[in-house]
């Protein structure tokens, strides 16, 4: 009996030609073993449970680096605003005193 092509042999399964030809039976068995070896090694492979939390932590770190707190800037702004307000209040008095002092000296 002529042996069928490999793909035909696989299509027929163990009860086809492989059922009564030792060499093709060995080929069919090897195909099944290869299939089972890969299936048991790779089926159900999943991401490690700690992967997603690690990604979230990396992103949180990155967000922290990218967006520093606005508090120092806000305090800086408040400070400068206070200095300017103080100057605005005091400057007329200082100018008046300076003018009076100049007039007194003259």
């Amino acid at each position, binding site marked *: 009996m002529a042996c069928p092509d490999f793909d035909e042999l696989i299509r027929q399964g163990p009860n086809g030609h492989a059922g009564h030809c030792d060499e093709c039976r060995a080929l069919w068995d090897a*195909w099944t073993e290869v299939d089972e070896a890969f299936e048991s090694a790779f089926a159900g*492979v999943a991401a*490690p449970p700690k*992967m997603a939390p690690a990604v979230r932590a990396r992103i949180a770190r990155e967000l922290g680096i990218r967006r520093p707190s606005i508090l120092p800037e806000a305090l800086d702004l408040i400070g400068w605003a206070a200095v300017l307000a103080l100057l605005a209040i005091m400057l007329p008095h200082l100018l008046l005193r300076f003018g009076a002092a100049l007039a007194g000296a003259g």
Partner: protein
Amino acid sequence: MFRNIGAPRPGLKKAMAEDFERIVRDYQDKIFRLAFSMLGDHAAAEEAAQDALVRIWRGLPGFRGASSLSTWIYAITRNTCLSARGRRGLAADSLEEPAARIAVEMRVAKAWSAAAAPDAAALLDRLPAKYRAVVALFYMQEKSYDEVARMLDLPIGTVKTYLFRARQSLSEELARERVKKGEA
């Protein structure tokens, strides 16, 4: 699904965070499997998968849906893995690169014994590089040709051909060795 992507509006940051969480939930396993199939090493795959997810998060505001979300995610993952392979001194080219030796972490010292059940790592090691990722991913992805083709960006016909040739060559080799052993 992913209604928020590409729709700038108030609350985008929160919407983006929700979309990203959905991506992590739906794709983390697939991203890891793709990385594992390309790198052949658990630790390297985890690192690359993390890098890919961070890149996805960074790119999410700019994703406008020109390609499907999965196509975009897999492309980022493949590129991340190719960079990782480059850093590790492995051929950073592509799956088409002929017969480069990829380190397989699962490889145990066990030689291919003609009597024992074949070891998956030893079997993979006997295959040309271009077949390995396809074979590993096929079994990880519950034997879905379509999914493997999309993940590796290969035509489905190529995936089927690679798989058939890989399994055929391994089966013939194993059967030959078994017969030889039986005769000896």
